């Protein structure tokens, strides 16, 4: 089932990646190639197999519900591209 131009546009939108008209054929070909490769998956019969999401089939470790870190907002915002008064700046969302 080859990937259509619409598929590329749909997936790019979901992935929040701007893909220009000119780039579509290149990504279409790339995705097609990969899907061809992974199509071999459909050859295996896996009816009664439990899916494996992770190499460790254990539940995650729990810890006490305690504050372990100080407020480090200023430190963490040092690497942000645009901040003001401790807030992250983005283009206007509400008019």
């Amino acid at each position, binding site marked *: 089932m080859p990937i259509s131009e619409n598929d590329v546009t749909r997936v790019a939108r979901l992935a929040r990646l701007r893909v220009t008209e000119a780039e579509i054929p290149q990504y279409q070909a790339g995705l097609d190639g990969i899907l061809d*490769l992974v199509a071999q998956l459909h050859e295996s019969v896996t009816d009664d197999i439990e899916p494996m999401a992770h190499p460790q089939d254990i539940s995650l470790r729990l810890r006490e519900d305690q504050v372990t870190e100080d407020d480090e907002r200023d430190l963490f915002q040092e*690497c942000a591209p645009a901040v003001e008064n401790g807030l*992250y700046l983005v283009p206007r969302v509400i008019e």
Partner: protein
Amino acid sequence: MLHLLSLKALRERLQKREVSSVELTKHFIDRIAKFSDLNAFISVDEEGALASAEDADKSLNKNQSGNLTGIPIAHKDIFCTKRLRTTCGSKMLAGFTAPYDATVVQRLANAGCVTIGKTNMDEFAMGSSNETSFFGNVKNPWQTSRVPGGSSGGSAASVAARLIPAATGTDTGGSIRQPAAFCGLTGLKPSYGRVSRYGMIAFASSLDQGGPLTRSAEDSAIMFNAMGGFDPKDSTSIERPIPSVNELLDLDLRGLRLGLPTEFFDSSVDTAVLGSVREALQILEKRGAQLVDVSLPNSAAGIPCYYVIAPAEASSNLSRFDGVRFGHRSEQADSLLDLYECSRAEGFGEEVKRRILIGTYVLSAGYYDAYYLKAQKIRRVISDDFTKAFEKCDVIVGPTTPSTAFKIGEKTQDPVSMYLNDIFTNTVNLAGLPSLSMPVGLDGSGLPIGMQLIGRFMDETSLIGTAHQFQLETDWHERCPEDFA
């Protein structure tokens, strides 16, 4: 000729005060500058390194040294460092300095290592040749027209060229073992959960694992012991200590069963590679190991399975790069959606975008069951294959890669042919097992050949021990590319 000494030998010289850490650090910084054509480093921190070397010398003089005090090392540029920028080989993070150190960075610093710099890598660790780096490709010191492998290509090239005694790497589908094979090094991918992922930029979180690239098994044991172990900051970290260096190295090969999977010894592998692997097996057999035939019948499904699971996890992990909190921010954007889409389009390279798109596709409504869920089931089947094989043997052996290092540019136009390089390595990550690549020969044109050892979960000891016994008998690991001796 300080650069020709092993980590262990350098440690002895430092501790006997026959050489100072400052001398050593200067020597390696000079070599990095002299061989900058290899493009193995993204950042070099001369000032910071010399300051830590001076501190190391003070500790050594006071006999207050740690296990690795004064030893210069380099980190793959995927490990966050407070003092140096961390780019992950991407334009997205070209100007990023992390607010904290990765646990691996912290542990090696605590052991006394001097961090000289950060090594080049495929962008976000997505690649097998180091050609997807925003900072340009890395050359293989054995033949500079060849790739060093990837994604830990800069670490491998720099250790092979003796620009640094040891370096860290990460392995999601073969990214430590394949470059180790291509550059004639010993590369260890520990069991999943052995080495903390805290501060290691995530690619595919259920597969990613950090480990050392070194010249010998002995050096690998020293590095693994220093960088690994339980870390409360990583929720998947295993609460068991790493064996001591002596425990890791001291293995009796007598009675050790080495399993040869028929699927790893087929006609798709270069004859020179197969020949060297077979010779290495004979040496191990002479020292008492038993060779047994085993089968991993679903290993051909490894690549398709991996190329669903790894991109799916990557598409989720890389959604954090939004142009708001860190990383590249587009100046074109008029709306919030524009800001996300343009920042990501400008910041990520082509291979990363391709994997984000395929990952998003296999997770999207209508395709999830057919691809992602199916791949997770195959993952179980592949993991069960290993469990069954380990009923008959203690260590699984075979070639690390089907061929030796390929030419720069040879596979860049065809992503799928690049992916096939990881055919013997990525099933190991799917199962979470430990694995090591060690040099076992050179092909007709003088390029290194790697042999892969795969162990039971948590059994790095049999891998490092077997490699060490092999290296006591052979000198492949001591070979140095001519121009760098």
